[in-house]
């Protein structure tokens, strides 16, 4: 449904490339980024890079498959549009990305984390080697030498690699809160200082290895977490970079291309066929049809002629339109919708991730335990140094190493498994939330049904009439004509020979066949009585008009998916912006008993909010801009890959394939992921329950601390990996 304007055949654009190009190249020897949503393999990389390099004006082209973008260095005079045309010609969908809105293309934070992982890993391995010597009985001078060497390696390493934890902990403490990073930082700092002191005093126990392995494992967890979130963020950035950047304005001096931000109320804006309307306005000149599916969910295009109100975001289908802008920028209906989405999103941010909830309980308990150990031993033994040592040992063994890995490891494993099934999980807490949902709400147009219409039945037509119809529909790009062309061609119809074919934008087609006038078009145009079903009427000469009915075809896998969902007892609702008749037909076909039609975007949000007020947790599946608010306000949400960009950005999970079939799997995998996370918490807690008494009693040595920490982390990791292995069955 969200076809890019670049894909649609657009005679106006082809006629005007030079003009667009003149304004397009604002930098010398310019670099530009194109988004390539469709690429997925080596073949695509080769096609894009070689295809672009075959042009003389492209100096360098480098595809980044992770981000699905290509970076191009090209001659200053080359228009971006020309490169997009070129790629479209190669069968690759490309869209221009605004470099300013894209911001930083490199993942600085991820790189920083990798660097810290490397440093702490290097330091950990070296210090471990020396610790092995100490554990196996190095004495006196040798032990002290090894301690000093460990200190020399680990102090700078901890100071550098631990920075993310220190910074987070400080941020939390400054506002008087506790988070997972507070006990981590405390353990790291205290362990380092205490070990340094012990080393200087020639003591037995130093925890340098523990401090470093803690840093290493926790950084790994942090990096996994970051990878998940970076994917989501770059998707959002791409969305911002994709906004319609330029518009065509008509002035007394002629046409000029300006940035959207320069457009003003009262400007005369020209919208070429295939382009998205950039502003809200009133049609001054021209007739055409508009695809409003993304905004309203209507499956049929509507006519536009002089005086029609049009809204930003609608797609102009057939003829050029001149608009008088009535609202630009933040005032357009598209913008208002985005604002509504932002508001709805903040509601979702109130969800507290399982990990944070665990940390909320965990952090105070650990601190109290360490304090209790310290005070207890000062009281019992009267030795502050011993008491401090034991308190630190408690902090170290209870350090949430396993806890820090529990969630990211499971999320990564589950997301990897879902990805192989064609589901991209964009949000770190999405699976936790999906696991809790108890009701699924679907949008109709573009989600359960395909955006394409198909012919319902051709029985009413005889061979001649079918041939006439095909000849007429072939000459038009109107969506109904295209659907009829597909259906008629598939039925093996041969087009009749017609003369004098004319298209009357917004009404239909006329032609002459064997001396008689034939008409194909709307009910009014052919003199028929309108019915509820969409479609076109064919009238030959002065005969009775025949109705060629169209219906929306169900998306692949929709029927199976619905059967599975209903069989598992999931409650399913359908809310659509389409007409009651169309909505009822789909609902009945799929066996959905609760459905609502003619819903505005605000209605949808209200409907979901009402459900939420009843304590229901909704999984919303939708694709259009009209669903975007609903997607953002639902407890969790899924959008198909073909959805509007904003809808994809607002949803937690994107269905990469055409089929809806993986959806039930998403729910079951999410549930098992959540179960696995809770299991991991239980494992971590179990380890702690085992070692805390030992630590409190003063039996924990650096060796025991190292063993307990690594085993719990590794157990948690292995448990998480079970999720990704199940797919091979």
């Amino acid at each position: 449904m969200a076809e890019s304007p670049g894909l649609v055949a657009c005679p106006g654009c082809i006629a005007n490339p030079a003009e667009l190009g003149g304004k397009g190249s604002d930098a010398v020897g310019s670099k530009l980024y194109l988004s390539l949503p469709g690429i997925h393999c080596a073949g695509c990389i080769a096609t894009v890079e070689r295809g672009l390099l075959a042009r003389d004006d492209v100096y360098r082209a480098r595809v980044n498959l992770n981000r699905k973008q290509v970076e191009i260095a090209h001659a200053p005079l080359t228009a971006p549009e020309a490169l997009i045309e070129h790629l479209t010609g190669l069968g690759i969908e490309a869209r221009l990305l605004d470099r300013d809105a894209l911001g930083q293309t490199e993942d600085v934070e991820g790189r920083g984390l990798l660097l810290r992982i490397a440093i702490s890993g290097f330091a950990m391995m070296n210090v471990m080697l020396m610790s092995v010597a100490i554990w196996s009985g190095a004495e006196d001078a040798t032990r002290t030498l090894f301690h000093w060497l460990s200190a020399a390696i680990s102090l700078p390493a901890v100071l550098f690699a631990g920075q993310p934890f220190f910074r987070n902990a400080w941020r939390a403490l400054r506002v008087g809160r506790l988070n997972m990073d507070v006990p981590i930082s405390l353990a790291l700092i205290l362990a380092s200082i205490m070990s340094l002191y012990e080393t200087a005093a020639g003591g037995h126990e130093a925890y340098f290895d523990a401090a470093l392995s803690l840093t290493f494992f926790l950084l790994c967890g942090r990096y996994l977490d970051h990878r998940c979130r970076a994917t989501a963020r770059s998707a959002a950035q791409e969305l911002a970079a994709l906004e319609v950047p330029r518009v065509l304005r008509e002035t007394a001096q002629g046409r000029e291309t300006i940035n959207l931000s320069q457009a003003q109320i009262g400007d005369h804006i020209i919208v070429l066929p295939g382009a998205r309307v950039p502003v809200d306005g009133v049609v001054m000149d021209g007739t055409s049809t508009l695809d409003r599916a993304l905004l309203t969910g209507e499956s049929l295009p509507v006519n536009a002629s002089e005086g029609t109100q049009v809204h930003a975001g609608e797609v102009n289908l057939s003829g050029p339109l001149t608009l008088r802008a009535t609202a630009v920028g933040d005032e357009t209906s598209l913008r208002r919708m985005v604002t509504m989405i932002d508001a709805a999103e903040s509601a979702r941010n109130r969800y507290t991730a399982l990990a944070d909830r665990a940390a909320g309980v965990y952090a105070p308990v650990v601190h109290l335990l360490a304090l209790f150990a310290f005070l207890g031993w000062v009281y019992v033994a009267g030795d502050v140094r011993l008491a401090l040592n034991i308190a630190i040992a408690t902090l170290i063994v209870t350090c949430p190493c396993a806890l820090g890995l529990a969630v990211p490891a499971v999320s990564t494993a589950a997301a990897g498994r879902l990805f192989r099934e064609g589901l991209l999980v964009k949000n770190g807490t999405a699976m936790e939330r999906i696991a809790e949902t108890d009701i699924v709400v679907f949008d109709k147009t573009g989600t359960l049904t395909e955006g394409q219409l198909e012919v319902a039945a051709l029985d009413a037509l005889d061979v001649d009439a079918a041939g006439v119809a095909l000849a007429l529909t072939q000459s038009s790009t109107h969506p109904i004509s295209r659907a009829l062309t597909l259906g008629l061609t598939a039925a093996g119809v041969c087009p009749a020979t017609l003369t004098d074919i004319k298209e009357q934008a917004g009404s239909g087609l006329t032609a002459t066949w064997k001396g008689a006038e034939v008409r194909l078009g709307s009910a009014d145009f052919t003199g028929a009585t309108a019915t509820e079903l969409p479609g076109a009427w064919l009238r030959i000469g002065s005969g009775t008009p025949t109705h060629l009915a169209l219906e929306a075809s169900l998306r692949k896998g929709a029927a199976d998916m619905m059967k599975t969902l209903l069989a598992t007892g999931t409650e399913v609702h359908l809310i659509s912006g389409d007409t009651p008749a169309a909505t009822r037909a789909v609902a009945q076909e799929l066996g959905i008993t609760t459905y609502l039609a003619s819903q505005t975007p605000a209605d949808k949000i209200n409907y979901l909010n009402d459900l939420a007020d009843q304590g229901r947790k909704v999984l919303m599946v939708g694709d259009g801009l009209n669903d975007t608010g609903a997607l953002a306000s639902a407890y969790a949400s899924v959008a198909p890959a073909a959805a509007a960009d904003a809808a994809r950005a607002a949803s937690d999970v994107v269905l990469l394939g055409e089929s809806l079939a993986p959806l039930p799997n998403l729910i079951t995998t999410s549930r098992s992921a959540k179960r696995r996370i809770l299991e991991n918490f239980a494992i971590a807690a179990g380890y702690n329950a085992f070692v805390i008494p030992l630590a409190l009693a003063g039996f924990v040595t650096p060796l025991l601390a190292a063993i307990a920490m690594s085993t719990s982390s590794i157990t948690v990791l292995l448990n998480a990996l079970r999720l990704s292995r199940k797919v091979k069955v």
Partner: protein
Amino acid sequence: MNILAILIPVSLTLGGIGLLAFLWSLRADQYEDLDGAAWRILMDDDKAADDPDEPAKGS
């Protein structure tokens, strides 16, 4: 125990080389496109001149 005076610097140096190698790979943008790198190896480069895979030229 004198052997330690040799072995410890040796082990640290070896580890350090590994670390430097990693840092170099990080600087050379080798972690920017992990999926792409996995596929690129399957591309048949008949004409080596066409191959733009040189990060040194890049940013």
